[in-house]
């Protein structure tokens, strides 16, 4: 069988939005391959997220529900996904491009002797995919020349999945002895934000070096809050420690494609553009009329951001 197994990530009892896009990729590819779609859920006390995952017409939802999977760890999750791949006779194992899958999927590829396509943007054929190279300056079509394939999937390129018949669940009884692993999980510090995540928000407001000082990032946050949007940042101000690196938009940070993107005080280095040029409407505010950001913006305003952003905020309130 040429089945497709999608690793479905979840947080706080819900399937992550990026994983929904990966399910859509799975539905599409299963059709092309003429195989079944299977989903894998890994965690501790999965609860209602299992019911959510059953809605998308997958042939089966494989669950790995055990205390050992409470925290993501590369070694233990690799064991679960490899077991899932075998149980589902999958010739493709994929998940959304996230910090976990970037850490995990090359290991799964190694275990399954599979070639891997990173950050897939489109399905071309059963073993052919489009993916970005050189920071998105090139869109390559790649062919994976192994029997089994692995992919990470760029979530902004796929819509939410169609719902289908309720999937049966196969609960796998896998218990990984964490003390046997070579890497030990010590702690995680999550940055809690009231704002929507930039990768799933309709509006993203991003700030850069033009803000001049850390405290001025509040302008970005205030504008985002007016529009119920998420916030993002250029590499420069992440490096400077003004904002957590988690906000970085770009080739090496997050790739976003909201309906409306504000680039404020961001010059528009190639690496930044790679992370946001898929946005529907781009607004750039920069006092340098020659800033490269204006080459990709739909609406550009050459002005001092400290004059115009407060004005924009008050006109939106």
């Amino acid at each position, binding site marked *: 069988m040429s089945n497709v197994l999608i690793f479905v990530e979840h947080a706080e009892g819900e399937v992550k939005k990026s994983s929904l896009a990966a399910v859509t990729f799975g539905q599409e590819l299963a059709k092309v391959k003429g195989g079944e779609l299977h989903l894998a859920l890994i965690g501790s006390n999965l609860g209602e997220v299992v019911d959510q995952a059953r809605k998308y017409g997958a042939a089966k939802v494989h669950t790995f529900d055990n205390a050992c999977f409470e925290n993501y760890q*590369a070694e233990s999750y690799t064991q679960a996904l490899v077991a899932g791949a075998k149980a589902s006779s999958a010739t493709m194992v994929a998940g959304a491009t*996230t*910090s976990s899958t*970037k*850490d995990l999927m*090359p*290991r799964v*590829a*190694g275990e399954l002797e599979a*070639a*891997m396509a*990173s950050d897939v943007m489109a399905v071309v054929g059963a073993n*052919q995919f489009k993916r*970005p*190279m*050189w*920071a*998105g*300056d*090139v*869109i390559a079509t*790649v*062919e*994976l020349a192994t029997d089994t394939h692995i992919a990470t999937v760029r979530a902004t390129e796929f819509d939410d999945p169609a719902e289908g018949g309720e999937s049966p669940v196969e609960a796998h009884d896998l218990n990984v002895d964490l003390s046997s*692993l*070579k*890497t*030990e*999980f*010590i702690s*995680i*510090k999550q*940055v809690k934000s009231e704002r929507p995540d930039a990768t799933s928000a309709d*509006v993203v407001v991003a700030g850069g070096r033009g803000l001049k000082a850390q405290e001025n990032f509040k302008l970005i946050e205030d504008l985002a809050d007016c529009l119920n949007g998420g916030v993002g940042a250029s*590499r420069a101000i*992440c*490096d*400077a*420690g003004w904002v*957590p*690196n*988690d906000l970085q938009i770009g*080739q*090496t940070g997050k790739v976003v494609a909201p309906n*409306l993107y504000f680039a404020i005080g961001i010059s528009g280095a190639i690496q930044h553009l790679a992370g946001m*040029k898929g946005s529907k*409407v*781009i*607004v750039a505010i920069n006092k340098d009329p020659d800033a490269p950001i*204006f*080459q*990709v*913006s*739909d609406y*550009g*305003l050459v002005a001092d951001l400290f004059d*115009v952003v407060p004005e*924009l905020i008050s*006109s*939106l309130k």
Partner: protein
Amino acid sequence: MKVLTVIKRVEDPEIKVKIKGDGSGIETDQMKYVVNPFDEIAVEEALRVRDAHSGELIVACVGPKDATQQIRTALAMGANRGVHVVADKNLDPHNEVKALQKVVEKESPDLIILGKQSVDDDLGQVGALLAQQLGWSQISFTSKEESLEGPEEKGKQTALSIADGSLQALREVDGGVEVLKAKLPAVVTTELRLNVPRYASLPGIMKAKKKPIEELAAKDLLGDTSSIIKVIGMEAPPSRAAGIKVENIGELVEKLKNEAKVI
């Protein structure tokens, strides 16, 4: 402490690459090549680890003959010696890892540090695949919370704490940071926000000319080096239509409301 760092020769990321007319590859005439920026960060961190724990830093590179230039750059930054696995071209992650395994077998390092991805193929697979194939522990996307413009960075302290045969480090994850502790030997990949790589000094460049680089042939180590990720075509991304400049906020808000209909 024996540290191995892995670098790759890539097109200068500041130059926009152009696709050949037939889509078979990119134009390489007059291209400038550099050390993959993430690997430069890896070399910097490896130097700090070596200096903090004393020992040796080996820089390994799998790539074409001309990649000697990039190995020299890492040697000029301060690495002790180089190992160059010479191939006709850059190899895919699967083959690169197989070649690196041979280097690791010979050198038995305690720690391997490499960039989290290279900016040419943007695959980001070598670090985790190498750890898996070696059966070593792995910490991807190591970073630090302190500013890269602060005093800690100027002191060139390593962000990787190594003691009693283990390495503890902070790594970036979506929505936060995580701390992991890895038994040595380990494979570590570097995020952008780990350090600011040093420039090679003039004396460093002079010294680098005399540092040894061992050359091995990929075909002797691996036999078949054909890629399992075949690029069968390249195209440019859809370009954005040129936008307009607005004069003021009033006009911007009006356009967003009535023309783009996004607010």
